[in-house]
C-alpha cells in the first residue's frame, strides 16, 4: 500500500486582541428573547414564510407586558388574529407577533337589540354560532368564517352584500382601543374620537389593539336564504346582470372562469341570494339551529373533508383547472335559474367547503390579486387584467367578482364599483413573473382610479402607495399613527413594505 502524505488540513489564524469597538458593540445588544418563542408566522396564502416571537395574551395587562418586553429589546410588535390575510398583513418577521386569538370571549349579548360586545379574538364562526338561534346573523362576513373580529375590523372586511350594507365597520357602534404609545384605552365611536374610529377600522392593526368591540348584528327570520344561480357567457353580461339585480338582491357574487377566452372571456356564474320574508319559513326555530347550518364534515357521507385537498392537488395546474372550471361552468349553465334555498353558513362560507384547500396549491402557496375599480372604468380594466394574464401565461385559477360602495373610513379599499379577485398559484418558477405581472396589473388598476385591499395584498410596491391612497390620505394616516404610536411600536411586514418611511421621521 502506498503511504499517503497528509498535508496540514487548513488554515491557522493567529490569535489577536479583540478590539474595543467590538466590545462596545457587544454591550449594546439587548438580552435575547426565549428561543422557543420563535415560531413560523407566515402569510395565509403560504407564499411568504417568516419567523416571529409569538406571544398569546389573554388579558389587557398581558398585552401591556408584551409591549414593554418588545420595547426593552428594541423590537416592534405586529398584531395577528387568525392569520387569514393572504399576504404579509399579519406578519412580524423577526419581531414580536402579538397573537390575539386567545382573547376570545363574548362579553355581552342582547338578543332583543342584536348588540354584541366581544373581545378581538372572537371569530366570525364563534359569533354566528352564538347568535343565530336568537335570530341574528353577522351583518358582514368574509368568505371564510375563521377570521377574528379584531382582524375583520383591522382590514374592514366586506361581504357579498357590500354594495347594500357597506363594510363591517359600518356596523360597529364603538370599540375600545389600547394605544401603544401611552398604554391607555380609549373609546372610539362616530362621536368619541371619530378620527381614530375611522382610522383604526381599516387601519391594518398599526394604530392600536381593539380590546372590546361593539357590533350590531342583522336580524333574520329564517336560517335559510333563497339562492338563484345565473350563468353568464362573458364579462359584459356579468356586469349587466349585476346592475340589473343590484336593487333586488341581498347578496350577489360572481365566479369567473379565467380560462374563458375570446367571446367567452369573463364567463362565469352568479349567485344571487335573498333573505326570506318573515313567515315564509314555516320552521324558523329549526332552520336557525347551529347544527342545521353547519357545513357537512364528509363528502358523500363517507369521505372526511379534511382529506379533500389531497384529491384536488393533482388537478391544481393549468390543464387541470382549465378542465375543472369548464366543467363547473357548463354544469352551472344547466342550473341557470333553478332557485333553491341554502343555509346562511352554507351560502356565506364558500371557502370553507374544502378545509385547507390552499394546500392543494402546493408548497409555493398562492397569492390573490384583488383590485377595486369605479363602475365607469371597471369593465375595461378587468378585461385588460384577464387578457394580460392570458398573454403572460399566468392564468388565475379562481376569479371572484363583487359589487361595492364607498364608505367613510380613512384607508378604505371600497369604491362605487366592482372588485375582481384573482388567485394565482405560486411556484419557484412563477414567482418572479407573477410579481412583474402584478406590477403591470397595478398600472391598469391605478389608471382606472382603482384601489387595493391590504387583507389580500402581497405585491404592491411602496412607490405606488400614494397613487393608490393619495398623498393626503397617507399623510393623514401617518399623522394619526404619530399621535398614538410615536415610537412606531406597532409594525407589520406589510407596514414596512408600503410605509417604509419611519413614522417618526415623517414630515
Amino acid at each position: 500500500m502506498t503511504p499517503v502524505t497528509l498535508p496540514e488540513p487548513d488554515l491557522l489564524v493567529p490569535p489577536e486582541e479583540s478590539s474595543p469597538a467590538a466590545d462596545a458593540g457587544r454591550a449594546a445588544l439587548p438580552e435575547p428573547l426565549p428561543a422557543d418563542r420563535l415560531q413560523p408566522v407566515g402569510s395565509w396564502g403560504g407564499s411568504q414564510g417568516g419567523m416571529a416571537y409569538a406571544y398569546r395574551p389573554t388579558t389587557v395587562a398581558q398585552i401591556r407586558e408584551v409591549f414593554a418586553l418588545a420595547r426593552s429589546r428594541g423590537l416592534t410588535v405586529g398584531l395577528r388574529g387568525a392569520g387569514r390575510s393572504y399576504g404579509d398583513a399579519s406578519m412580524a418577521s423577526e419581531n414580536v407577533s402579538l397573537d390575539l386569538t386567545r382573547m376570545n370571549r363574548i362579553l355581552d349579548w342582547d338578543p332583543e337589540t342584536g348588540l354584541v360586545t366581544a373581545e378581538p379574538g372572537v371569530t366570525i364562526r364563534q359569533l354566528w354560532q352564538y347568535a343565530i338561534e336568537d335570530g341574528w346573523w353577522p351583518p358582514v362576513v368574509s368568505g371564510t368564517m375563521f377570521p377574528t373580529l379584531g382582524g375583520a375590523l383591522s382590514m374592514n372586511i366586506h361581504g357579498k352584500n357590500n354594495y347594500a350594507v357597506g363594510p363591517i365597520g359600518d356596523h360597529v357602534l364603538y370599540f375600545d382601543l389600547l394605544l401603544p404609545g401611552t398604554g391607555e384605552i380609549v373609546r372610539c365611536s362616530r362621536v368619541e374620537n371619530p378620527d381614530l374610529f375611522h382610522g383604526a377600522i381599516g387601519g391594518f392593526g398599526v394604530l392600536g389593539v381593539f380590546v372590546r368591540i361593539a357590533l350590531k348584528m342583522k336580524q333574520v327570520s329564517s336560517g335559510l336564504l333563497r339562492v338563484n344561480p345565473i350563468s353568464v357567457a362573458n364579462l359584459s353580461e356579468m356586469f349587466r346582470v349585476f346592475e340589473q339585480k343590484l336593487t333586488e338582491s341581498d347578496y350577489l357574487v360572481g365566479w369567473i372562469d379565467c380560462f374563458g377566452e375570446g367571446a367567452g372571456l369573463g364567463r362565469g356564474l352568479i349567485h344571487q341570494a335573498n333573505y326570506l320574508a318573515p313567515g315564509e319559513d314555516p320552521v324558523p326555530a329549526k332552520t336557525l339551529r347551529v347544527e342545521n347550518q353547519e357545513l357537512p364534515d364528509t363528502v358523500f357521507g363517507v369521505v372526511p373533508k379534511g382529506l379533500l385537498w389531497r384529491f384536488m392537488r393533482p388537478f391544481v395546474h393549468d390543464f387541470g383547472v382549465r378542465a375543472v372550471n369548464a366543467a363547473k361552468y357548463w354544469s352551472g349553465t344547466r342550473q341557470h335559474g333553478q332557485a333553491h334555498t341554502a343555509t346562511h353558513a352554507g351560502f356565506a362560507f364558500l371557502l370553507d367547503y374544502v378545509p385547507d384547500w390552499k394546500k392543494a396549491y402546493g408548497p409555493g402557496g398562492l397569492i390573490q390579486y384583488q383590485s377595486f375599480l369605479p363602475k365607469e372604468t371597471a369593465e375595461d380594466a378587468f378585461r385588460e387584467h384577464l387578457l394580460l394574464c392570458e398573454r403572460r401565461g399566468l392564468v388565475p385559477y379562481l376569479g371572484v367578482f363583487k359589487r361595492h360602495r364607498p364608505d367613510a373610513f380613512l384607508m378604505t379599499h371600497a369604491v362605487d364599483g366592482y372588485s375582481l379577485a384573482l388567485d394565482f398559484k405560486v411556484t419557484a418558477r412563477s414567482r418572479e413573473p407573477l410579481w412583474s405581472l402584478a406590477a403591470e396589473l397595478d398600472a391598469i388598476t391605478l389608471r382606472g382610479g382603482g384601489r387595493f385591499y391590504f387583507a389580500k395584498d402581497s405585491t404592491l410596491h411602496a412607490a405606488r402607495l400614494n397613487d393608490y391612497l393619495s398623498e393626503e390620505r397617507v399623510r393623514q394616516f401617518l399623522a394619526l399613527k404619530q399621535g398614538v404610536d410615536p415610537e412606531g411600536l406597532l409594525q407589520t411586514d406589510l407596514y414596512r413594505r408600503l410605509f417604509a418611511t419611519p413614522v417618526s421621521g415623517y414630515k
Partner: protein
Amino acid sequence: MAASSPWKHAIVVGASSGMGAEVARLLAAQGCKVALVARREAELNALAEELNRVRGGAAHAYVHDVTSYDEVPALFQQVCRDLGGLDLIVYASGIMPRVAEDEFDFDKDWGVVEVNLLGAIAWLNPAAQRFAAAGAGTIVGVSSVAGDRGRRGNTVYGATKAALNAYLESLRNRLSTRGVTVVTVKPGPVETPMTRGLGRMPFMISAPEAARQIVSAARKRAGTAYVPGIWRVIMAVVRAIPSAIFRHMKF
C-alpha cells in the same frame, strides 16, 4: 453569471479570510444577503465593503470572537433581524496552531477546542432550533479530513474535527425529517494565506474553488462532502489502515 442562490439570508461565521470569506463572496454574488461574523475587524470590514460595493445591502459585518459564547444568543437574534430572516448558516471558524512532537500544552489545546468545537456548538445550536421550528434551513459545518483519523502530528485539532463530525451527524439525524439540511464539509488542503509557506500539497485547491464545492454540496444537500472529492477515496484508504501499522507511519 452565477446561478441565483436558493438561500436569501445567510450567516457565515469565520468570514474574514480563507474559505469563509470565499463562501461569503460566492453567496453574495448569487444574490444572497450575508452576515459576516469574524473576530478580525479590519479584514471583516474590508470584505463587507467589497461586497456592498457590488450590491448595496449585500453584507452586514459583526465583530465577534466565537469563544464569547454568552454573546451568541443575543447576537444570533440580532443578525437574523438585520438580515430579515435566515435560511443558511456556515460555520467556517477554525484554528490549527502548530504542535511540536513532544508538546502537550493544555492551554493551546483548549484554545483549539474552543474555536473549532465549542464555538460551532454555540452558533449551530440556535440555528438548529430555529430551523427545526421553521421546518426548513441549511446548516453547513466546515470540518476537515483531519477528523477521520487521529494523526500523530495533529492531536487536538483532529479530535475537535472528529467531534464536530459526530455533532453534525447527530444534528442531521435529528433534523433531516423536519426539513433541515445539515452538511459536513471535509476539505483537504486549501490554498489560503496560511498554507502559502507550506509548499505545494497533494490535491491542493484554491479557496474560491473550495468555496464553490462547499456551496454546491449544500445545494445538493450532500450529507458529507469531501473537498475536493478525491479525498473521499483517499480517506477511505487511510481509515482502512490498521492501527498497528498506522502508528508507525510518519504523517
